[in-house]
């Protein structure tokens, strides 16, 4: 009986220790995974416009709402002919498009540019630029 009781007690304590160890190992693995993922997909280094100091809304609002502003504006412009500059896509591109060493505009949806860097990171597809110009000035004459 005594032996049995002792055995039972030691088993219980050993069981507790194993669970704690399990948890520890799990935490360590999770931490390792998180840090690995972070290392694999770095937070994008978004190129910011050089001329303008601030956007049409604070950064926190733009991050969450920019597509709503664009959706609203697109219908206003397309359907009603209201062409205010503030939330227009043309205005976004004209400010955020970067220039290369030859002073030529880089398409804003090119890898590493303002729109694509963030959209790639968040895995959200943008289809604005299947139709809309990606640079603030038209490539050939006319406009």
């Amino acid at each position, binding site marked *: 009986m005594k032996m049995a009781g002792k055995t039972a007690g030691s088993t219980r304590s050993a069981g507790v220790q194993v669970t704690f160890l399990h948890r520890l190992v799990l935490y360590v693995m999770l931490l390792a995974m998180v840090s690995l993922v972070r290392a694999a997909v770095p937070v994008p280094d978004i190129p910011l416009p050089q001329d303008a100091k601030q956007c049409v809304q604070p950064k926190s609002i733009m991050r969450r709402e920019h597509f709503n502003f664009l959706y609203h504006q697109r219908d206003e412009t397309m359907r009603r*002919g209201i*062409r*205010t500059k503030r939330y227009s896509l043309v205005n976004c591109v004209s400010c955020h498009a970067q220039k290369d060493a030859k002073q030529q505009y880089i398409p804003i949806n090119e890898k590493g540019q303002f729109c694509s860097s963030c959209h790639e990171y968040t895995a959200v597809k943008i289809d604005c630029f*299947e139709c809309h*110009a*990606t640079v603030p000035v*038209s490539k*050939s004459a006319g*406009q």
Partner: protein
Amino acid sequence: MKETHYSSQQQSSPPQTDLSKRKWIGGAAALVALSPGLRLVELAAAKPNDQPASSAVRWGMLVDTERCTDSCTACVDACQLENGWGKGSTDESRSRATQKAHWIRKVKLRDRETGKTHILPLFCQHCENPPCVDVCPTGASFKRADGIVLVDKHICIGCRYCMMACPYKARSFIHEALHDQRVLVPRGKGTVESCTFCVQRVDRGEQPACVEACAKLGNKALTFGDLSDPESAIAKQRTEVTSRAIRADLALNPRVRYQGI
């Protein structure tokens, strides 16, 4: 006169915007009163950016086929450069000629009996009752308040019903991915497009590119303006000359009229 103007505005818009619009139209009316040489069409054309297109304006075009010549392609070239299709684009390279965009075409008509030929530019006729809008299953084809018929490419699914419905063959479909669009003229694969009366220019108070090019050359075959304004050049010209709608039998009341055919 002023009063009727206001009441027609009131019906079509909510009260809040109405106030600002009233102010704007009131200001325009005052300006007209102040300067007799200034026409309302010009004021309406120089629409402030924050104002919607007004149903008080009705854009239209008058084509004088007698002044249009076979060899000249100024209107087509200007349209291509302005709107970025044809010569204005390098993207549509793999489509067959019959598939490519054609916002404006020169059409030759020949009288079988006399052999007399007419040359005329054919483009979206901006009908009052547009069949393209009737058949569009998504509502992408629509008519703006000022009568300009457009395609909202955001919701166009590329079914091309509108192309079949249009008796003028004015619309075309984009078959390949584009990259060099104009800043104010978005165009893209899988959507239908047609003449927009250069809506981006009209909204800032300019004439469509084809009209400007034709006038620059001295041909002056195209007149563009507000049909609702009796003082506008186009309205006056339409009271003086005989002009016809193409396929008038369809009762679509196109805003583009032809003189001399």
